[in-house]
């Protein structure tokens, strides 16, 4: 018997509650995001020394880009998310696999709950600090906000899809820390956390947009400041969200076959 939609909704709520027990940690992390926000603004604003626009950004759009990145980093990238890989290593994954649920959907539900909590605690404060110290570029109409909200939701799914695959690598790799280390570096640089992708040389720009990384932070940030076509950005995100989830299912099916449960 497979679980119905009600179970997954309850998993979303459980994910929210589980993460809301770590309030101090969330606040500490948020404070760090704010410090980094100020530093990244300072670094990025240096490019406007002799010009008013760089790569389609004016200073207000650039600092908005920085602050929304800091506000979404925990929600979307979640660098420390190795829970599933640890369960593979410890063997607890066997229990997860025999439960009457779809493992990927269950993890996604838990992730949406976590993202919801992150939205409550870690999104608002950096944006407010950013707005207090800088002039931000925000949507002027409802459609802009709706597009941004959709972009954030898709970004969470893309981030989950990426990390689900990375976690599954633990079925084949003895030591998966290197994989997550590489993810942290690539997602920061290619996702648009450190620099807008538009600032890279043209060839690099094309190559980076061919990866899923811009769908995590660059796309929501561009939707917020109104740079580029919202429809194209959302299609890029949707494509990668569906593609990564589908790939995750295939890899999970393969992984189930290599799993050997010792003892009985």
């Amino acid at each position, binding site marked *: 018997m497979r679980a119905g939609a009600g179970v997954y909704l309850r998993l979303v709520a459980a994910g929210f509650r589980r993460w809301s027990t770590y309030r101090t940690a969330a606040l*500490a992390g948020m404070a760090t995001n704010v410090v980094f926000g100020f*530093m990244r603004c300072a*670094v990025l604003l240096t*490019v406007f020394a002799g010009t008013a626009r760089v790569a389609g950004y004016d200073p207000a759009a650039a600092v908005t880009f920085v602050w929304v990145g800091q506000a979404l980093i925990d929600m979307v990238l979640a660098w420390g998310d190795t829970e599933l890989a640890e369960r593979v290593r410890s063997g607890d994954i066997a229990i997860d696999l025999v439960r009457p649920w779809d493992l990927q959907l269950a993890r996604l539900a838990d992730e949406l709950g976590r993202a919801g909590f992150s939205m409550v605690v870690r999104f608002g404060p950096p944006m407010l600090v950013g707005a207090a110290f800088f002039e931000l570029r925000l949507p002027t109409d409802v459609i802009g906000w709706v597009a941004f909200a959709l972009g954030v939701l898709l970004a969470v799914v893309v981030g989950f899809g990426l990390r689900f695959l990375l976690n599954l690598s633990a079925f084949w790799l*003895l030591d998966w820390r*290197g994989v997550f280390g590489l993810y*942290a570096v690539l997602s920061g640089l290619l996702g648009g956390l450190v*620099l807008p992708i538009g600032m890279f040389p043209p060839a690099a720009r094309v190559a980076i947009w061919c990866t899923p990384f811009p769908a995590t932070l660059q796309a929501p940030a561009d939707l917020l400041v109104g740079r580029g076509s919202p429809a194209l950005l959302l299609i890029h995100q949707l494509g990668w969200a569906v593609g990564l989830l589908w790939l995750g299912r295939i890899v999970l099916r393969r992984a189930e076959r290599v799993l050997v449960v010792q003892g009985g």
Partner: protein
Amino acid sequence: MALGAQAGRTRRASGITAYRRLVGAAARSQLAYPASFALQCAGQAAAQTSELVTILVLFRHVRAMGGFDVRQVLVIYGIAGVSFGLADMIVGQLDSLPTYIRMGRLDALMLRPLGALGQICASEITLRRLGRSCTALAVLVVALSTVDIQWTVGRAVLVMLAPVAGTVILCSIWVVACSVCFWLVEGRELANSVTYGSSMFTAYPLGIFSSWLRRLMGFAVPGAFVAYFPTLALLGKPDPLGLPRWLQWSSPLVAVLSVLVAGAVWRTALRHYRGTGS
């Protein structure tokens, strides 16, 4: 008393032996899987390279940053990167201090006749961070060979001493920041703002930051002394911010001072520690 002095010497010698064994054991266990170790080194090198890419991409759009051209910024980046990689290697595992406290492992360390801080650092030294330092060192060597430097004995000594002083300063920052965890067990990420934050802050010219950020991350947390001031001294460049010239040569002194502060803070924190109880 001669006898007392001798006993002290013996104890110190056995302490050094113990630390050497702890480091040796850590190194052996990390090198047990050479392929995995090589991959992790590459990961660290990639992390350092991403900061380099950031600087190079920014310089596609500007000629100078805070009064420094690209090669001069890369000298700052190089010294900062070597220092941060080494500091992260030596004290980076203090980030797991909350785990030590929660699991009661700190109590076990404190029962042993060696300092708790030394034990954590020695037994958890992370050699893969060398990937970071080596990348930064390579960039530093290239940058130093392309910028104009009037080499003097003083500058030759400084170029050797600066990464060491930088490492010591960053280690001290790390120790002070992680001491917060004795009061706030879940506050580890707060420490990141000054540890990893310093990694970013120290790699750029001081002048690009606003004045309160300079005061906070450059002087209260002495990040300006890691790479910025030594680079000015090496280049013989007047400070674009107009700060006094003697500051440029003061990094070794600041390193000594920060060790004293870090030591005092750590001892206070450890005295405050009462265990989590079980």
